């Protein structure tokens, strides 16, 4: 045991020293273009995971290196520090587009389901339902929501979710106290009696005991379209030799979305992902979580304007002051559609 442990330590030191000092030279030309991908955990990383498992990436001239993150803000930092080329990210992607000049390619999944805020059954907010006619599902009223303490991971889609909810009741962030906590710690704090409302998402959402907690609102009930997006770093996007690899990646994502229409394939992949990450999960329990968040196929992207959600989020960030007006212009300027349109036509020729 001792020798192995020492070997690990030595390896760690040499690896660290190497990364500290030398800049690793790019792989030789004819090898597939390596794309370093950052994805959010669980369901959102499935397409990338599936592509590399099936070997579809090497077949089409690119190689995926996947790292998973718990929050979009972590991915922002990865993009900012040039450790990542492409990422799947939610609302936090707006920051990357305006501050790190990243490029929005397209939205690949409707991930609104599960993005909800829980409230205790016995709390005053839970007693009032249907206060607003056009949003019958929403719980609470301006009086009960005012001065509430809400636990949520700030700077992500959940903040927009909460702000939209407040906006429906004519309130703003200044009327409540927003406490910045990651989803899991938020659950533990809320469950031990802290705060009045706690934002959550799958899989933590299912941990809440239905007898004690109900959904005050979710992205669907608040009417906020929330899609996850594929975003590329500016340097990677502008490098001509990566163009084909990017198109190929988008094509494979569309192909995976198509195969994921078959529920059993989708669920098997999900279970395989959990296995790989050393987490034991009950298949039936998580089935609804996975199926409620469909991936956009070729037909979906041809019929609806998938960029709507990203634009709404960017405008929202501007209104609450997270980004300035000219940042907003910057975001819109960075929304590219050339790659996805090329990918759609390539997909049509090969797979239809």
């Amino acid at each position, binding site marked *: 045991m001792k020798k192995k442990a020492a070997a690990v330590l030595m390896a760690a*030191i040499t690896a*660290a020293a190497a*990364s*500290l000092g030398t800049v690793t030279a790019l792989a030789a030309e004819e090898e597939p273009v390596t794309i370093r991908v950052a994805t959010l955990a669980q369901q959102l990383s499935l397409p990338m995971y599936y592509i590399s498992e099936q070997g579809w990436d090497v077949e089409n001239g690119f190689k995926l290196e996947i790292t998973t993150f718990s929050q979009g803000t*972590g991915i922002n930092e990865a993009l900012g520090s040039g450790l990542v080329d492409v990422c799947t990210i939610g609302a936090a992607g707006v920051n990357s587009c305006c501050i790190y000049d990243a490029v929005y390619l397209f939205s690949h999944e409707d991930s609104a389901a599960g993005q909800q805020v829980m409230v205790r059954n016995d709390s005053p907010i839970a007693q009032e339902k249907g206060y607003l006619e056009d949003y019958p599902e929403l719980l609470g009223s301006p009086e009960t929501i005012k001065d509430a303490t809400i636990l949520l991971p700030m700077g992500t889609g959940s903040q927009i979710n909460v702000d939209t909810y407040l906006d429906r009741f004519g309130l703003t962030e200044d009327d409540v106290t927003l406490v910045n906590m990651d989803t*899991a*710690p938020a659950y533990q704090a809320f469950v*031990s009696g802290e705060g009045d409302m706690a934002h959550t998402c799958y899989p933590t959402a299912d941990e809440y005991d239905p007898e004690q907690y109900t959904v005050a609102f979710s992205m669907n009930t608040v009417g906020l379209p929330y899609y996850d997006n594929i975003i590329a770093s500016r340097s990677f996007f502008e490098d001509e030799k990566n163009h084909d690899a990017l198109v190929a990646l988008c094509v494979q994502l569309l192909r995976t979305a198509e195969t994921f229409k078959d529920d059993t394939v989708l669920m098997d992949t999900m279970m395989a992902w959990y296995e790989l990450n050393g987490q034991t999960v009950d298949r039936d329990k998580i089935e609804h979580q996975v199926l409620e968040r469909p991936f956009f196929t070729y037909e979906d992207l041809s019929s609806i304007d998938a960029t709507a959600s990203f634009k709404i989020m960017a405008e929202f960030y501007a209104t609450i002051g997270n980004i300035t007006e000219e940042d907003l212009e910057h975001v819109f300027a960075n929304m590219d559609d050339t790659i996805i349109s090329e990918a759609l036509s390539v997909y049509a020729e090969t797979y239809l």
Partner: protein
Amino acid sequence: MRHNYGKIRVVLYGAGTFLVLLSLWQIAAMTSNSEIGFPTPVAVIGRFFHMLSNKVGSYTIWGHTLWSLSRVVIGYLLACVLGVVLGLTMGWFPYVKALFKPVFDLLRPIAPLAWIPLAILWFGIGEKYKYFLIFIAAFVPFTLNSYAGAVRVDRQLIGAARMLGASHSQVFFRIVVPSAVPSIFSGAQVALSNAWMTMLAAEMVRSSEGIGWLIIAGQGINDMTQMIAGMLAIGIVGFLLANGMRLLERRCLVWNNQGK
């Protein structure tokens, strides 16, 4: 602070208190009905030994500890070398002091953890930002204590050395540096606990292995037992590091044991 009250009595009392505390914890855990099952000490210790042999994530506790230690070692050694050199030269050469001390005093009061966001911005979220953070956390105590050691050198010893024919640089290397060693060692002790704490913070912010990651992974899946077992590991390793440093000090400073 060590008073020998007879070995057996020491062990008896110490073990006694630990037992009392553990049983209190056991009772509290069993009776508590909080939503999150509060683990009992037995579960925690059991999990700790379980994690010693089987993997959590990609390593056992040994691997995680080694990862954490490897990060501390690199940042710590760098801070030791630079901190001592800067501290001693600042303490002995007035020009160096005039040049570097103001900027050093400007950056010194900033808590190491406050550097995390900037470190991530500068070095990305790989390993480098952890080395930078640990370096900053250890660099300040090393520099401060070396500076204090060099400034507080006994003037008479310097007179004696010059009287015996030592040149200005010989005085620095043969008199100032050795006489600063005791206070450098006390700086090393502070630097070690700083480095250890900051390494943990860096790992809890972003990492895929290490003891800090172990706790955060536990928190991520609401596994309180893993969280507390992780803390147990941190406590043990921290305990060994601190005592290891004291032993090293006692061995190296045999000429000074009447001082401290």
